[in-house]
């Protein structure tokens, strides 16, 4: 396909969305599947690009504005890339009462990112979550990567920093 981005030079070659074929095959004809299609798309690419939204529109016949509307309505969808590790910091009531703000501070002190931001090296993204449902272990954060989902409970500032440092040094060893 050609690039659908209006601000883009039309001679450029658009991205390849062949990986979406099996998903579209399965859901294109099933009414009400837009959210499922977007979830699968995000699983593959990590986030929803405007190109992907235009491509899905072309393939499903759903207007891009509507897809964009759905994508921005739900907290699960992202329109920007995320780091290798996604820090999901729980901001549920139990975590709030037990000091989730302090953990957010610790993350900022260690990585210099606020909610929604990604570190310059592309390693970490911080996303505050409404609730992870591990309330009796508050405060809690979950760190998601391609390899694993690890949940850390009963956090303190020091503990949170230690977890982040360990991941950092592990990454440095690999490189």
């Amino acid at each position, binding site marked *: 396909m050609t690039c659908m981005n209006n601000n883009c030079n039309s001679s450029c070659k658009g991205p390849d969305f062949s990986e979406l074929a099996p998903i579209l095959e399965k859901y294109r004809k099933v*009414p*009400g*599947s*837009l*959210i*499922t299609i*977007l*979830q699968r798309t995000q699983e593959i690419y990590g986030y929803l690009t405007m190109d992907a939204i235009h491509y899905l529109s072309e393939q499903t016949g759903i207007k891009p504005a509507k897809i964009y*509307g*759905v994508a921005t*309505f*739900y*907290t*699960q*969808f992202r329109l920007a890339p995320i780091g290798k590790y996604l820090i999901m910091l729980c*901001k*549920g*009531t*139990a975590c*709030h*009462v*037990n000091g989730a703000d302090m953990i957010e501070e610790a993350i900022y002190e260690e990585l210099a990112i606020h909610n929604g931001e990604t570190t310059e090296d592309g390693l970490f993204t911080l996303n505050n*979550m*409404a*609730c*992870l*449902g*591990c*309330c*009796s*272990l*508050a405060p*809690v954060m979950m760190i998601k990567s391609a390899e694993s*989902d690890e*949940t*850390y*409970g009963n956090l303190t*500032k020091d503990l949170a920093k230690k977890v982040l440092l360990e991941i950092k040094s592990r990454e440095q060893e690999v490189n």
Partner: protein
Amino acid sequence: MKVLVGQGSCGIATGAGKTANEFEKQVKNMGLKNVTIDKTGCIGSCFLEPIVDIYDDEGKLEVRYVKVQPEKVADIVNKHLVGGNPVWEYSIPSMDQDFLSRQKKIVLRNCGIINPERIEEYIATGGYEATKKALTTMTPEEVIEEIKISGLRGRGGAGFPTWFKWNAARLNKAENKYMCCNADEGDPGAFMDRSVLEGDPHSMIEGMIIGGYAMGATEGVIYVRAEYPLAIARLEKAMQQARQKGFLGENIMSSGYSFDIRIKAGAGAFVCGEETALIASLEGERGMPRLKPPFPAQKGFWQQPTNINNVETFANVPWIIVNGGVAFGAMGTEKSKGTKVFALAGKIKKGGLVEVPMGLPLKEVIFGIGGGIKNDKAFKAVQMGGPSGGCIPAELADTPVDYESITKTGAIVGSGGMIVMDETTCMVDMARYFLDFTRKESCGKCNYCRIGTKRMLEILERITKGEGKDGDIELLEELALKIKEGSMCGLGQTAPNPVLTTIRYFRNEYEDHIYKKKCTAKSCKALLTFTITDACKGCTLCARKCPVEAITGKVKEKHLIDQDKCIKCGKCEEVCKFDAITRD
């Protein structure tokens, strides 16, 4: 012998997976042939995780070990599994037994006992007997009558009689009808649905089949949070096994009734707890509520009659069918029957899931079961019903937990979140926290909800920053009333509740913030004054860590904070090793 390792999300977060692997390894190394290692869901005592139960060959519970970190495994394997002598120092302390013995488990009857990934274990506890009884010996009307006798009310928040909804959906004739399960547990601070889905998915599925039969549904849909990956995985496995056994699919148990269920993963929106918003989301749209009527029982999913119940409601159904509505109705109070699961969290000693008969006094739940307040601080309030609920003060701790009594306090039973707060929790900040949540989650359809919550949040933010003005409390009350009246759905209608209840019971805290510029709970940093006491040893650490160089002093001499420079970040208090910084 069987080693049962609790592996709900809480257990896994405390390392239960590693504990289970360690058991596998050690048992294999020792060459123990007669020991099986299995997993189960959450038993509710989250504060004791990881929990490991050892069953003897007759299936009797021998010992319950708690806080079993991997390093304790070798001891248990060597002394208990090989030597036959339980390691009593790792077993559950007798005082923590109370946490379980004071409860009455119906919804959580199998959680933490059976392996949720094996349907045979569910069947062995009498599972799918209810489905058999309902589908082969009862008419749909009889099923509805039994639920009516039981007095079961919706456990998702509103407390609407379940039989009434089923009957309304039954009376509407249509080609397709849908039975939906709302497993989109969006209330921050509630995790009872997650535990049922992870620990006993079949009881919920069975409830859906029976309800589907009663209303005449052709298909079932489970709307579950994408944030609960383990729950989704276990549900999928459970449904597949139920299909193989013939409990789902064509002509279930030769009853002539056909019914199957599929899963839809929600994408994260609190407003989708509202029925019509949930239906919009199921249809792939933005989850925005619409006006009722028509009610979902008339026109719901794809414009067909639809019934939506919560996970906990469904999990009650098989028990009612097997034991009878009268037995269920014998528990609880006159208008609130049966039991209710609460997620006990916050400043509580023993947090976790508790299931108690309706009508038990709040203090019995918090002190009798939950063991009281963490670090023995003073109990201040308990927040019930999440962002739609309210704060119940310590003076009302005798209030029985049932729908009517809790509603009278200004809070709601809601889905069952129970967040305990102590003297260090600022009630104005709590109100701000919830408003921040509802402001973000408002779908934007109604002006009062969209803009009103934002304005209320701005006022609350000002107050917690020490910029509160005379008249703010009255303005908050006025806005609250307008938002309640001017919003179409439950989200907006209840969003001001946390503010209204905190003003009602803790008006003095609001006044302290506004007029005295003091935070009663010493929690709002902008209103604090940090000072250094005589305990200071002059180690210079705070002076070095202060980001604005507001602390001065010589080595080994008491330091001083320049209050004009201080930005009240609390860094000095955090780093001080001698507890020499006080906040006031």
